[in-house]
């Protein structure tokens, strides 16, 4: 059981890293881009870069703010 946990923890750390919010925001950004493009007919090429910049900024802010 411990080995399975360690294996899972390794891949989580490898792919997701220190802040899962970044991964969640990127996945949400991709989903929203797909909806805008395929359902609303908007060529939303600008959305994912904006989401990536926002995710990075938010993650940096969280990492550098004093813990409450």
């Amino acid at each position: 059981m411990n080995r399975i946990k360690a294996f899972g923890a390794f891949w989580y750390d490898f792919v997701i890293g220190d802040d899962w919010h970044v991964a969640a925001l990127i996945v949400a950004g991709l989903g929203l881009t797909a909806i805008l493009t395929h359902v609303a007919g908007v060529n939303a090429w600008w959305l994912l870069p904006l989401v990536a910049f926002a995710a990075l900024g938010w993650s940096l802010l969280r990492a550098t703010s004093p813990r409450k």
Partner: protein
Amino acid sequence: MNALPLILTVFVACAVEAIEALTIVLAAGITREWKSTFQGMAVALVVLAAITAVVGPAIAYLPLTPLRLVIGALLAIFGLQWLRKAVLRATGYKALHDEASAYLREVTAAETAARESKRGVSDWYAFTLAFKGVLLEGLEVVFIVITFGANQKNIGAAVIGAAAAIVVVTITGIVVRAPLTKVPENWMKFAVGIMLTSFGTFWGAEGAGVAWPGNDAALLVLVPVVALVSAGYVFWLRSRKAAVGAPARQAEVVSS
């Protein structure tokens, strides 16, 4: 798209990982025993080659659009992790990765570990240290080679970039016989983070269905914009830190 950006990106990314693997291999070889160290290294390289040989061609059979969506998402997440660490290091919120201190830590641990023969290997500690070091650092190389290569339908070019980096770092390591402390590793990681984030965002959005203005030429704008925004975050955090007073630098040294 020209194969040169692909080869250069993979080269720099793989050079960073190879430098970290070299530090571990040198610590195991010099402190313990070269034969067992080389055995561990060789087994790890065989495992990495097998993963690349199996996953690389298999991924090439997948349809390009969903492949770009998944791989773009993974690359963007991976790249933002690298960028986050690089910005935190550049602003002093995270300790800089230092090959000299990483080497000293490995040497200290290797000197105190007991010697044990196992499964035909004369020094099991040296074997496992080299095996784990090369495998873990190498997995990131394999990930970058496969994702970049598959997206560009040019795994061969990605392998050339990775192999060139490994050869250059290995030859330099043999000549210097010490960890490569003079290499600007932290700035290389910053550059890799920018490239991974840019390519990941580009391919991910394409996979989600968008058409980039100018097609592939959009990358020529996206890469500098990601670099500028990241530099802006460094400037912002430095200014904020100066305004509130410098916090104590964290003692942790992360491995990647």
